């Protein structure tokens, strides 16, 4: 394992110290491992809290700031944070208008956020609403399973719900916006290499030179199938086709197209992928209204990418374009 780290046991605290040093506008609470917007709590504004296992940087801490999250909780690598962290974050951002928990759909995240919401409501009377993100079409959705994973759409939900909260809208409306974004978004991912969890010291799975894994998540889970490596145009088709079969993307205001790097994929390759994705969309008669290209929700040092499409309406586009000022996403401010 080759990584720019010290003791693998300290990766998260070391990275948090570095994050704090690099971004003095944002508050870091080391003890609780939470990152909080500098001016929180913003009175009268719905507070947005997210969080999850570490290893997906810049998600979530990189999205804390005006126009997006009020706080983020950092768990161990690929492990949901604990309720204490979520309680501390919720209290820190409670400006009297309630708090929205944005939770990626993993059993651990769901249960820990659930416990936290119970605790904070019981102890402090804070009103908490949770929205679950589950956009990964690689996983068959079913009432009898854990359902789909939350992946790329998380970034879009955090941005768009964050803009709605910044407009001063009430908790119920902000939650509705978040749910609508989630319901209009679909994703699919692909790995060229495995990632290596620092504590494990070796790749989570073996992926020989000529093969790639289609339908991976963001935790080094094996994907749905293994296929020979293919050129970018075929890869784009493997990722976009299942998305387009799952939801009708025509008839709206086009899509927000998001090509995401998994952590070790250079930008030049993401642009090659974005070209292929936009050509497929053009053929399908789906206009690209907005785009996002870069490593925003990663899986440590995995090479690969994911594609997320969000069917846009006027309000979604307006909120997408709204100012945002966070370490990892900034515009209009």
């Amino acid at each position, binding site marked *: 394992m080759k990584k720019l780290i010290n003791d693998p046991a300290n990766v998260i605290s070391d990275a948090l110290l570095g994050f704090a040093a690099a971004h003095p506008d944002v508050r870091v609470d080391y003890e609780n491992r939470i990152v909080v917007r500098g001016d929180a709590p913003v009175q009268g504004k719905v507070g947005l809290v997210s969080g999850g*296992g570490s290893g997906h940087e810049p998600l979530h801490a990189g999205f804390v700031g005006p126009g997006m999250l009020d706080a983020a909780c950092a*768990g*161990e*690598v*690929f*492990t*949901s*944070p*604990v*309720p*204490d962290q979520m309680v501390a974050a919720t209290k820190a951002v409670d400006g009297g208008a309630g708090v929205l928990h944005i939770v990626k759909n*993993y*059993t*651990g995240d769901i*249960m*820990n956020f*659930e*416990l936290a919401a119970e605790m904070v409501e019981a102890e402090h009377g804070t009103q908490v609403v949770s929205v679950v993100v589950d956009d990964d079409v*690689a*996983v*068959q959705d079913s009432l*009898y*399973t*854990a359902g789909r*994973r939350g992946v790329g759409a998380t970034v879009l939900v955090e941005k768009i719900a964050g803009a709605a909260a910044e407009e001063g809208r009430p908790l119920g409306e902000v939650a509705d916006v978040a749910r609508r974004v989630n319901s209009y978004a679909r994703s699919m991912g692909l790995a060229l290499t495995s990632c290596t*969890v620092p*504590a*494990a010291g070796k790749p*989570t*799975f073996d992926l020989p030179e000529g093969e790639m894994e289609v339908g991976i*998540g963001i*935790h*080094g*889970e*094996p994907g*749905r199938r293994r296929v020979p490596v293919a050129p970018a145009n075929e890869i784009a088709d493997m990722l976009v086709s299942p998305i387009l079969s799952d939801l009708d993307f025509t008839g709206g205001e086009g899509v927000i197209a998001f090509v995401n790097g998994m952590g070790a994929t250079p930008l030049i390759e993401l642009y090659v992928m974005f070209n292929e994705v936009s050509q497929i969309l053009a053929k399908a008669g789906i206009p690209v209204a907005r785009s996002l290209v870069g490593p925003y929700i990663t899986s440590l040092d995995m090479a690969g990418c994911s594609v997320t499409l969000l069917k846009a309406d006027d309000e979604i586009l307006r909120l997408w374009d709204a100012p945002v000022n966070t370490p990892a996403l900034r515009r209009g401010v």
Partner: protein
Amino acid sequence: MDTEALTAWIREFARLISANKAELTELDSAIGDGDHGANMDRGMTAVVSVLDAEPQESPSALFKKVGMTLISKVGGASGPLYGTAFLRMAAAAGDDVDLAKVLRAGLDGVIARGKAEPGDKTMVDALAPAVAALEAGKSVQAAAAAADQGREATIPLVARKGRASYLGERSAGHADPGATSVTLLLAAAATTLGDKA
């Protein structure tokens, strides 16, 4: 079955988790995200520290402390599940602990929290047969054996809960990590409480 014996049980569980950390991680790498060993070890190491610093006075206080510590330290799926189990065990523990009764409460807590059914390839598949054995009046050793069988029975299953469910058919052929850590809980009970049940 006094607080001291139950404390020994918890400590033995912590020891077994630590000794089998790599195996738990290995199993979770195959069908999950490779952290079940680290998660449980982080939690149980914290539990042992807490018990070293503050020995508990009653079975109920002991289980509550274990449950709260696991919830605060583990995260992931296993933190709330084991944590809830121990909190329910605390509520069910009277002055003299009936192992069948408290583990039944723990199992109910896991099911309430995680909504898994038998055969979903989760820790329930090891815990439920162990509870059934105890309720049928069998020994703790027999309950531990039942947990082991339950764990073995998860191998061919296709997971319907937890991360392993994302794999669909590819989850078959591997034992469930959480069911495996439950066998350690029962094995620890067999060595520490076996002659007291």
